[in-house]
């Protein structure tokens, strides 16, 4: 399935205990997001890139994911450099480019890329079921786990319905063009997609309830920490500690 396209593989990240990956990613993301020192942000970005490259994922697919993130970032670059107050460094017509604006945009770009790369490398390399199990073992509130699980479930349902309907249109010789027939057909497709996905997820939920589901996920597999997992835990803690110290200590900006 589309959402789990990185989950197959044999890198160290694929074999690592998902509990550690969740903890590591969470603390990394919090520290990276809160840091306001360029040096820490650069360090976070470099670390994330190294981690992502060591996961041995399909480069084209990774690039397309990162492109989505940077699409949003690009949007910020259209506004932030001109709307942030501070020391002006250039004037384009009535637009004033400020030094602070550029620094802020740069810092958001680095944080966003660091967190996205780390998420792909750490969460993308586990299956969703493993992540759900890990979340339960980490005592994350059940409601949050359910929210996460059903989000995933419903997105996959919608995606599956979409591919099925598109194939159905294909065998009836549908080729998108710019005419009313195309627009209407695509609108119908969208409409049917929502009605049907809603219906189908409702039935999935009913089937779960009929089999006694009342909000608790039972776990069959239990995770075991191997020696390499303990090593990973220590390494991750060190990296994050380094970032925290870098942020709090004086000296370089």
């Amino acid at each position: 399935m589309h959402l789990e396209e990185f989950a197959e593989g044999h890198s160290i990240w694929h074999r690592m205990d998902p509990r550690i990956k969740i903890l590591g990613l969470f603390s990394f993301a919090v520290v990276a997001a809160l840091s306001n020192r360029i040096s820490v942000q650069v360090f976070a970005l470099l670390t994330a890139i190294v981690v992502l490259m060591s996961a041995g994922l399909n480069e084209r697919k990774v690039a397309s994911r990162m492109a989505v993130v940077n699409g949003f970032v690009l949007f910020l670059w259209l506004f932030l450099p001109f709307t942030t107050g501070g020391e002006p460094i250039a004037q384009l017509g009535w637009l004033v480019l400020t030094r602070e604006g550029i620094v802020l945009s740069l810092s958001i770009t680095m944080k966003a890329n660091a967190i996205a790369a780390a998420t792909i490398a750490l969460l993308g390399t586990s299956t969703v079921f493993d992540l759900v199990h890990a979340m339960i073992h980490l005592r994350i509130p059940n409601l949050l786990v359910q929210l996460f699980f059903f989000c995933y479930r419903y997105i996959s349902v919608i995606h599956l319905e979409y591919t099925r309907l598109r194939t159905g249109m294909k065998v009836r010789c549908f080729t998108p063009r710019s005419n009313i027939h195309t627009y209407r057909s695509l609108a119908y497709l969208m409409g049917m997609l929502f009605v049907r996905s809603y219906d189908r997820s409702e039935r999935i939920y009913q089937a779960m309830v009929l089999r006694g589901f009342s909000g608790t996920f039972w776990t069959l597999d239990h995770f075991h920490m191997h020696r390499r997992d303990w090593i990973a835990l220590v390494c991750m803690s060190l990296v994050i500690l380094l970032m925290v110290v870098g942020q709090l200590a004086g000296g370089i900006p």
Partner: protein
Amino acid sequence: MIRLEDIGFAYPNSTRVLEGLDLLCDEGTRIGIVGANGSGKTTLLHIIMGLLRPTSGTVTLFGRQPSSEADFREARRRMGFVFQDADDQLFCPTVAEDVAFGPRNLGRSAKQAHEMVSRTLDMLGIEHLEKRVTYQLSGGEKRLVALATALAMEPEVLILDEPTAGLSEETSEQLLGILSRHISTSIIVSHDRSFLQRASDEVLLLEKGVLTETGMSEMGTWSRSRPPSPGDPL
């Protein structure tokens, strides 16, 4: 019209489904295919329609070997396909619009498409469903409408994946009548052997990735070329 030679196919990360399969469907032949669940019947039909590409072997449709999606698109204009699950087929709000969808894609005018809708629904005896919402139809009604969407394109060959599943006996009977009256070339997959015997000229068995003759013929009798042996599937 349709010729498959030495087709091999495997889904990613799984065992081979088809291996060295041959199939020939000439103009005017009606072929039936039986086979156990999971033997690859649906896969085979999807390969014919170009929805899946075989890992080896050649597909020839109407004298050409389609290699690109554009080639298959051309061939699909002449082949009508009905999915095993009718839900895969229907996406428009009303039955009339869904049946008109194919003819419109083939370039018919709105008026021609509309005539085609009435004609096809009449032929199947479901004209009362014309204004209904597709998504509220019963399972059997959906099947008939799905069939109508394929027939409305006036295909030269009709390809059906388990058309009788979920149909009542009368409706199956009616379907048989329609097929024998209006369709001369077809490939039909079904688990209903008595239906298949009556709807096709030869029935093939899909097993271990290849098609073999079953010896069942049109009248439900054994063909003369080979006496039945105890190992024969039935």
